[in-house]
């Protein structure tokens, strides 16, 4: 029987393999350098999330009971969603290699569990240690143990939720059927996911605001996660029986979650993807084929999806609040070059070399994908102002030019190694997108027609882009 220390060591390559799985779409020349980068990125990710959780936890502990509750809720959201894409890769892996090693079933189960815990180890360890200490410092030694129970409960619930969501994503979303409905479902789910992540902060703030409103106080107490428990500790110094009793269900739930989590990770081998023997192969146009392929590739990778949906999330958020639509539009435009890098980055050059495909078709498909993202991002802004519509030709030109340049300069091969070409592509994209807006500002200042001042340069840019396309 191997020691737990040995099994912990064995779990490391599995964890790295899980993390590596998120980058499966990339083709690399220098594998050694790539793997080093991946290991470094895994550590950086953990440090970032640790810093966020620890500093927010210590700061919340220094404030009121409601702030601590808000912190619990934020932790629940952050731990659940931040690691979701790594978790999705984890649940997709059977780790068959373990069965070829001289390990017993029990040892294999432990290694799987350790590999799972490695995904969260540093952030959760630091949080479990720092938060109760901070509570003890700010609210007395008595609060150490209850806050330790609270934070462990939150963590176990988060892990369980993360595992459940990851299974759902893998089985139903990432690799569900290839119908258009499935793609729409994937997009809607990712959107909901993004909104949930961004919403964590909103809910945290809302909790504080609601608690101060008369009549809502009780509601917040009842429904805020573990609130009664820590309210009692902070407000009264000593946990009172009623507050403790209302917290018991949360603790029971977290114990159940912990047990389910361990069972799922230890025992469950590879999750089966539902398959059907029926299949259709339907021909479309070349541009549409690339567009469909890109949408599938992006929507099946949570990491890429989150990046591509940054402008969408930002655009819809800015469109929903009463901010100046032109300023909002400028912010959204700032995110758009990301779409070019993702859509060009996922293209396999070796596959393209074997196909009778023209550069024009590839660039046009990337442009149309970018334009779709732009239209979704600015949907709410369009209801408030006509400028996003007037700027559309310019956005089309921006995607044509940035995609062509990114391809020619090989800017998407390794973004970190080719920072010069990357900056050139981003700079030129901004120039193309913002020039018509600058004309608009000048026209407004001079009292001329803003519509024409934006539309004419935008159309000129589009004309140039069409000429470029026709020469490819």
């Amino acid at each position: 029987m191997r020691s737990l220390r040995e099994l912990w060591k064995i779990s490391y390559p599995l964890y790295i393999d899980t993390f590596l799985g998120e980058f499966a779409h990339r083709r690399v020349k220098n594998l050694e350098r790539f793997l080093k980068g991946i290991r470094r990125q895994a550590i950086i990710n953990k440090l970032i999330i640790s810093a966020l959780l620890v500093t927010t936890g210590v700061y919340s502990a220094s404030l009121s009971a409601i702030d601590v509750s808000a912190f619990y809720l934020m932790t629940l959201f952050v731990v659940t969603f931040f690691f979701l894409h790594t978790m999705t890769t984890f649940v997709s892996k059977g780790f068959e290699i373990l069965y070829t090693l001289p390990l017993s079933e029990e040892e294999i189960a432990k290694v799987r569990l350790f590999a799972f815990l490695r995904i969260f180890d540093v952030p959760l360890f630091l949080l479990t240690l720092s938060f109760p200490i901070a509570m003890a410092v700010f609210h007395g030694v008595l609060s150490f143990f209850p806050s330790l129970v609270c934070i462990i409960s939150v963590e176990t619930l988060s892990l369980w939720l993360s595992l459940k969501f990851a299974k759902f994503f893998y089985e139903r979303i990432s690799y569900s059927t290839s119908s258009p409905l499935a793609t729409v479902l994937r997009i809607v789910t990712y959107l909901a996911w993004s909104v949930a992540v961004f919403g964590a902060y909103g809910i945290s703030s809302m909790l504080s605001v609601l608690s101060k409103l008369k009549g809502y106080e009780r509601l917040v107490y009842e429904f805020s996660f573990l609130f009664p428990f820590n309210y009692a500790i902070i407000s009264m110094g000593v946990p009172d029986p009623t507050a403790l009793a209302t917290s018991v269900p949360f603790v029971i739930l977290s114990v159940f979650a912990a047990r389910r989590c361990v069972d799922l990770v230890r025992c469950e081998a590879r999750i089966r993807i539902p398959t059907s023997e029926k299949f259709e192969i339907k021909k479309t146009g070349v541009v549409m084929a690339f567009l469909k392929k890109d949408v599938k590739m992006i929507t099946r990778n949570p990491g890429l999806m989150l990046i591509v949906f940054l402008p969408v999330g930002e655009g819809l958020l800015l469109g929903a609040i009463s901010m100046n639509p032109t300023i909002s539009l400028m912010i959204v435009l700032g995110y758009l070059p990301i779409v070019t890098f993702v859509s060009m980055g996922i293209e396999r050059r070796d596959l393209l070399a074997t196909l009778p495909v023209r550069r024009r078709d590839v660039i046009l498909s990337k442009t149309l994908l970018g334009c779709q993202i732009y239209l979704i991002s600015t949907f709410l802004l369009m209801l408030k102002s006509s400028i996003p519509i007037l700027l559309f030709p310019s956005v089309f030109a921006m995607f044509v030019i940035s995609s062509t340049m990114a391809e020619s300069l090989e800017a998407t091969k390794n973004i970190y190694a080719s920072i010069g070409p990357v900056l050139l592509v981003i700079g030129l994209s901004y120039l193309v997108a913002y020039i018509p807006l600058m004309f608009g500002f000048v026209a407004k200042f001079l009292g001329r027609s803003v519509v024409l001042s934006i539309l004419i340069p935008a159309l000129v840019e589009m004309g140039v882009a069409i000429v470029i396309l026709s020469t490819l």
Partner: protein
Amino acid sequence: MLEVSNLHVRYDDLEAVKGVSFNVRGGEIFGLLGPNGAGKSSILKAIMGLVNYEGEIRLFGREITPEMKNEIGYVPEEPILIETLTPAEFFEFLASVRGKGCEKAKKLVKVFGLEEFVNKPIATLSMGNRKKVSIVSALMHDPKFLILDEPLNGLDARSSRILKEIMKKHVEGGGAILFSTHIMEIAERLCDRIAVLSEGRIIAMGSLEELKSVAKVEGSLEDVFLTLVGGEDLEEIIDAIS
């Protein structure tokens, strides 16, 4: 059908192919035979435009343009696939880009027994099934010229047999195949002409009979090959092992 003249392929400081010339005629299977690192795959990659090269490559008397890729079916040694798509989605993408191949892909999926896996993500498929996906994608558009780089590696006996039959039928119909392998028996049975490569150069080329006369050896292709690429010390090594 294919003419390759004075082909050079370089990877940084390493010259993998050193002035290779050969041609492949319609209705024949032309084999590239050589030990690991002899430059077989590099020649095939150069024809497909996957690596930079010097020299001349002409298909149907013309330089290979992107449009002409519709007349080529390529099975690389390491399948070039899109991992996040299912085979069905991948074939649909290829059929759309090439403008043909839907019906043939459906037939080939059945022939190679891929129905069970056609809706699973390619990333989850075994090596053998990935190879089958690669073969279907190379054959589905009925190309005139096939470039097969170790196509039988990883295939089960049934699929190997099917592919060999497809290859025979292909050349009977006037098509041509450029075929790379290091398995002598397969080359001996399938190829009409063979080029033996060593360290990036063709050291002998012709039919099996012609190679035998060049090597001055009677026997199998393996004997001819070992004589040509310098396997004289093999008996000594085998003796030492035993």
